[in-house]
């Protein structure tokens, strides 16, 4: 909770910095604040099992603290990397505070215990992102991305709210625990519109995490937004949304799983097929990464599905999101470096990168291997944990489909590596990498390798 308060205060301070003309100190202040929030998180992790606030609306228990830890770490490195983005125009302070407020929403989503805080978390996270997606004012592509994101996001929110209203109508409460108790007490006597409400909430969250068939906005929004904002969307926002889905379906709707689990299985199957086969045909790396994020969303939804059976797959989700955040940050940072060095976002821009910048090429290759799930990288063990969780469930066909479509995935990730190492570049000029971006890429790369080498240790840390 202290972390949440610190980030909110930072957001307000960043807005004030514009008035008092002390823009220079915003970045150090933000980084210090995030470190402070992480330290506060660490102490809360060690002291008690769970602390509740606001009449049990926000509860920071260990899973919530683990997810907020991942979100804060990712945000820390994102801020170091995003130096460029904040110097593109004059309203630096506004952009800082928007990102910080989105972070507040993400932290709230990890810790909600009430539909009110769930809804507010989703909106606090989304509304700043609509603005950030459209933040290249003169670029119509960016405007269009922001507008599409806004329309789809508000549509999803309306669906989410309709679901919440129906569930409230059946149970008479917004509290997660009360809803779960209601389900346990009235088994076989639950009104139909309760189930409709659950399915509406599932659909709304599939919109938010861009799972097929509700994914169509994602590639456009990812392509149009400034690359660094796309990096934020595909790491922090995804992790927070999955923390929310997991908690919602684990704690509130676990007992009505016969209703939603087969629908969820269909959504996962569609996401796996559509995303992997469409990604293989893309010419733009940014769009490829957007489709790949849909397939990773499917993997993370599989954890939610597997959890119905054993209720102990949280560590797999945390490990997967950590691995995915690491890989994504490197991929988008590399893309950003290349496009700001005169290249575009296509596969051909990566041609001969190993000669232009061996360091960048090495870490990009590492990220691609991790996202594809090749052994000794974090991504492999992420997928491995998901599969071990899925084995006992009745959805074995889904497991087979996931393995097969991962094979297609290897093809399009390899396309990047082949372009970097085996094709010759049009221009041989060395790529210039700014110090902060280099730092972020190296740290993220080391994390990706390290948690791939000692996966058991990380997974053990998050066993609850």
């Amino acid at each position, binding site marked *: 909770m202290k972390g949440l308060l610190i980030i909110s205060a930072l957001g307000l301070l960043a807005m004030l910095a514009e008035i008092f003309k002390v823009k220079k100190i915003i970045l150090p202040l933000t980084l210090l604040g995030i470190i402070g929030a992480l330290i506060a998180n660490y102490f809360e992790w060690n002291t008690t099992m769970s602390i509740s606030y606001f009449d049990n609306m926000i509860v920071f228990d260990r899973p919530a603290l683990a997810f907020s830890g991942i979100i804060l770490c990712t945000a820390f490195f994102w801020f170091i990397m995003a130096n460029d983005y904040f110097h593109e125009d004059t309203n630096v302070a506004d952009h800082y505070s928007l990102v910080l407020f989105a972070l507040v929403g993400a932290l709230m989503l990890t810790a909600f215990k009430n539909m*009110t805080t769930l809804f507010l978390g989703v909106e606090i996270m989304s509304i700043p992102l609509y603005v950030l997606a459209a933040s290249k004012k003169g670029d119509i592509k960016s405007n269009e991305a922001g507008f599409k994101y*806004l*329309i789809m996001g508000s*549509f999803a929110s309306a669906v989410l709210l309709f679901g919440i*209203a129906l569930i*409230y*109508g059946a149970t*008479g409460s917004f509290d997660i625990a009360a809803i779960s108790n209601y389900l346990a007490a009235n088994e076989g006597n639950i009104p139909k519109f309760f189930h409709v409400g659950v399915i509406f909430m599932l659909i709304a969250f599939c919109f938010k995490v861009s799972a097929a068939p509700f994914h169509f906005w994602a590639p456009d929004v990812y392509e149009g937004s400034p690359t660094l904002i796309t990096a934020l969307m595909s790491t922090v926002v995804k992790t927070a949304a999955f923390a929310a889905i997991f908690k919602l379906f684990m704690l509130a709707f676990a007992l009505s799983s016969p209703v939603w689990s087969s629908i969820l299985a269909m959504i996962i199957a569609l996401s796996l097929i559509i995303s992997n086969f469409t990604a293989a045909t893309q010419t733009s790396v940014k769009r490829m990464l957007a489709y790949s994020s849909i397939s990773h969303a499917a993997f993370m939804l599989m954890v939610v599905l597997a959890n119905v059976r054993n209720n102990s797959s949280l560590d797999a989700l945390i490990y997967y999101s950590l691995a995915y955040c690491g890989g994504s940050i490197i991929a988008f940072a590399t893309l950003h470096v290349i496009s700001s060095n005169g290249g575009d976002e296509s596969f051909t821009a990566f041609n001969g990168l190993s000669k232009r910048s061996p360091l960048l090429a090495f870490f990009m290759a590492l990220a691609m291997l991790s996202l594809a799930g090749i052994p000794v990288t974090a991504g492999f063990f992420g997928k491995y944990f998901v599969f071990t969780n899925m084995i006992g469930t009745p959805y074995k066909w889904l497991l087979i489909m996931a393995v097969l479509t991962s094979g297609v995935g290897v093809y399009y990730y390899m396309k990047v590596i082949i372009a970097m190492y085996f094709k010759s570049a049009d221009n041989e000029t060395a790529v210039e990498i700014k110090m902060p971006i280099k730092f972020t890429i190296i740290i993220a790369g080391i994390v990706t390798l390290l948690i791939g080498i000692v996966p058991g240790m990380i997974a053990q840390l998050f066993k609850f």
Partner: protein
Amino acid sequence: MINGISINMYLMLSTILFIIGAVGVMARRNTIILFMCIELMLNAVNLLMVAFSTLHNDSNGQVFVFFIMAVAAAEVAVGLAILSMIYRNIKSIDTDLLTKLKN
């Protein structure tokens, strides 16, 4: 029963309003009307929330409606700002012209 009207009537009315809004978002091309349709969807939810709140004799639902209203206002404020930015760039607010990002 709320004031002699059964809860199913409220449920039906707000479902119809919600569907009108949802169809509008998918079918209409004028962006201002898109925003109106989203507002319609949110207000259908508000109506349902208030009806259930009265049914359960529980004020939580009505407090939630205030949150929805505040958030809807924030969303429309951001939306109209983006819209005016689009208008400045392409001198139109028709969604058919927003095709710079290929599908």
